[in-house]
C-alpha cells in the first residue's frame, strides 16, 4: 500500500500533521496531491513547545515541510476497499497514480455522503483527539528537545 494512497483515502477525515519545525496541525483533510501538499479545514495549530494555540478556518501545507501525519485507524481499512474497487475498474496498476488523481473529481460527491459516518464517529471521539494533542505537547516539553 502506498503512503499517498492512504493519505488520499484519509480525505474528509481528521488528522494530525507535524511539521519539521515541530508545529502541529489538527484538522480535516480536504485535499492532497502527489507531493504530499495538503489542504486542511477547521485547523488547530499548536506551537513547537505546545504553549500557544491558533484556530484557523483552513490552511495549505507544503508537503516537504511535513514530518509525519497521524490518521484515524479506520482509514487503513478503507484503503483496501478502495483499492479493490479501483482495480475492478482499472486493471493496469502502473497507471494508478494518474488515474487516482483524476478519479477524485468524480468521487467527491460520494465522499461527502459516504464518509460522513466516519467523520462523525471520529468527531465524537473528539475527546480522543484532545488527549493526543495534550500528549504531544507534553512530550515536547517533557523531553526538552531542541
Amino acid at each position, binding site marked *: 500500500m502506498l503512503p499517498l494512497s492512504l493519505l488520499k483515502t484519509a480525505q474528509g477525515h481528521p488528522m494530525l500533521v507535524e511539521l519539521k519545525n515541530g508545529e502541529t496541525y489538527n484538522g480535516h483533510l480536504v485535499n492532497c496531491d502527489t507531493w504530499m501538499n495538503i489542504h486542511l479545514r477547521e485547523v*488547530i495549530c499548536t*506551537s513547537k513547545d505546545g504553549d500557544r*494555540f*491558533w484556530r*484557523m478556518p*483552513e490552511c495549505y501545507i507544503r508537503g516537504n*515541510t511535513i514530518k509525519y501525519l497521524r490518521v484515524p485507524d479506520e482509514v487503513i481499512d478503507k484503503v483496501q476497499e478502495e483499492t479493490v474497487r479501483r482495480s475492478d475498474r482499472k486493471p493496469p496498476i502502473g497507471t494508478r497514480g494518474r488515474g487516482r488523481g483524476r478519479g477524485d473529481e468524480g468521487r467527491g460527491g460520494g465522499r461527502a455522503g459516504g464518509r460522513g459516518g466516519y467523520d462523525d464517529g471520529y468527531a465524537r471521539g473528539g475527546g480522543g483527539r484532545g488527549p493526543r*494533542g495534550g500528549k504531544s505537547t507534553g512530550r515536547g516539553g517533557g523531553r526538552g528537545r531542541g
Partner: protein
Amino acid sequence: MAGRKETVLDLAKFVDKGVSVKLTGGREVTGTLKGYDQLLNLVLDEAIEYLRDQDDPLKTTDQTRPLGLIVCRGTAVMLVAPTDGTEEIANPFLQPDAA
C-alpha cells in the same frame, strides 16, 4: 509534465484577502494576496513580518515590521492560511482530568 495535477488549494479565493504565510527558516508574514502562480510564488501587498524571538528564532513575537509590497518565493512557502478567522486561542486540548 507541467500541470499534471490541479493544485490542492485554489488561491484564487484568497486574492485581495489577507493571508498569513510561513516560510522555511521561520519567517512569518501576513499581507493582502495580490497575485500568485502555480509554483506558489506569492505577491503580497502591505506585508507585515512578525519578528522573532532573539533567543529562539523559531518563535515569533507580536512585534512586527512593515515590508510593503513583496514577492514570496514559492519554494520557501511552507504554509498559507487566511488571516480572516485565524486567531490565537486557549489550549483546546486540556482535559478535565489533567493535573
